[in-house]
């Protein structure tokens, strides 16, 4: 019996040792893959960026908030230098994050300017495969009204071990907000901790896809961006509706600035319909 026990202990020990070696090698491969992916990232063409930055008022008005996902009111406060913090936690592989980024880029471009935004697409092997989008990884954003804090936790490609290459880690404070508010009663228990997670000023929270990523399927970023000027269409309407809702949540917290954005009729109505109580 002692012999058998010794053999089993030896077998388990060897298995753990081999497993740990494999894990270390896989992590090194994943880090290398992430670096390669990041290096190969394509910048968003100026024309596409321009279409996102210069969406006409008529398009915003047409989309209104009829296809918007209403945020949950969590009632906290998160400001930096007097500006509401817009915290986003997502990942490159995630198709729901891919959809959310469209509305976020459109909304945030009303308050500031992105630089070094790159083209991206969701995982080729997950649901809504290759959903066209952007990546906030290694991008920057300047604004007089908003402090945007994006965290792209992983890339869109899987390593040899089946895991997505890690990119960024939330700070302890960001992780704490995710764990506190991406949880019941603000979201269903089954969706707790899910991404994308977006928290505006610590008060308004979105968790999960704001709209069906399927409407973006099979289209290029340039083709989608070109439809935004009209505010109509199966992609433009949910993108702009959700961007209007996000815009309203920022306007409700930054003192209604800039006035040309926050004083529009659509945004005023959206601010009034923002939730004021926690679920």
């Amino acid at each position, binding site marked *: 019996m002692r012999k058998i026990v010794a053999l089993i202990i030896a077998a388990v020990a060897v298995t753990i040792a081999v497993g740990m070696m494999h894990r270390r090698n896989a992590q090194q491969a994943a880090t290398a893959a992430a670096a390669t992916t990041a290096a190969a990232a394509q910048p968003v063409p100026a024309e596409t960026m321009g279409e996102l930055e210069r969406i006409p008022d008529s398009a915003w008005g047409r989309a209104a908030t009829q296809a918007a996902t209403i945020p949950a009111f969590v009632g906290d406060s998160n400001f930096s230098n007097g500006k509401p913090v817009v915290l986003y936690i997502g990942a490159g592989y995630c198709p729901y994050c891919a959809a959310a980024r469209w509305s976020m880029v459109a909304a945030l471009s009303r308050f500031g300017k992105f630089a070094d935004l790159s083209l991206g697409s969701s995982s080729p092997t997950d649901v809504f495969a290759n959903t066209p989008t952007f990546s906030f990884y290694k991008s920057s954003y300047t604004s007089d009204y908003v402090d945007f804090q994006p965290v792209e936790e992983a890339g869109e490609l899987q390593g040899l*071990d089946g895991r997505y290459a890690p990119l960024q880690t939330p700070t302890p404070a960001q992780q704490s907000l995710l764990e506190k508010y991406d949880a019941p009663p603000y979201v269903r228990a089954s969706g707790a901790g899910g991404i994308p997670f977006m928290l505006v000023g610590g008060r308004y929270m979105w968790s999960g896809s704001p709209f069906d990523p399927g409407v973006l399927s099979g289209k290029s970023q340039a083709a989608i961006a070109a439809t935004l000027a009209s505010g109509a269409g199966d992609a433009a309407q949910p993108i702009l509706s959700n961007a209007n809702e996000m815009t309203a949540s920022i306007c409700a917290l930054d003192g209604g600035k800039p006035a040309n954005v926050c004083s529009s009729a659509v945004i005023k109505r959206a601010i009034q319909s923002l939730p004021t109580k926690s679920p």
Partner: protein
Amino acid sequence: MQRRTGDRLVLALAGAGLLIAGYLTLLHYDSSVPLACSAGSFVNCEVVLTSPSAMVAGLPVAVWGVAWFGVALVLAAVLLRDAATGETPRLRTLSRAWGAAGLAGVLYLVYQEVGVVGKICAWCTAVHVIIVAIVVVQSADG
């Protein structure tokens, strides 16, 4: 160790393993069942149980666990019943082979947890310990 005592022990261990594997199977198919497990950086059942490694041949590992413990339980019960009437060497050999297959499964799953997922599931570890204990008991009773 007396064979009847050993068979009784295997019966009890297989019953305990069946309960845990049954709970993990319920967790997989019913999202309303709460997961009573640490969600730490190393011990994290949710990460392990939702990883690709938690599926083998299209079925959750927990389902394979239910099947394995179910067979182990039946074999131990038959051996215990037949012990009164006479020895059943073929059945005992089959029971030991089944234990060895379970042990191979444990080694594979430990490798998946440590080497692929990078996290440990406490419930899975309990199941692994039970399977190892069954194999040890089977080897001790003759």
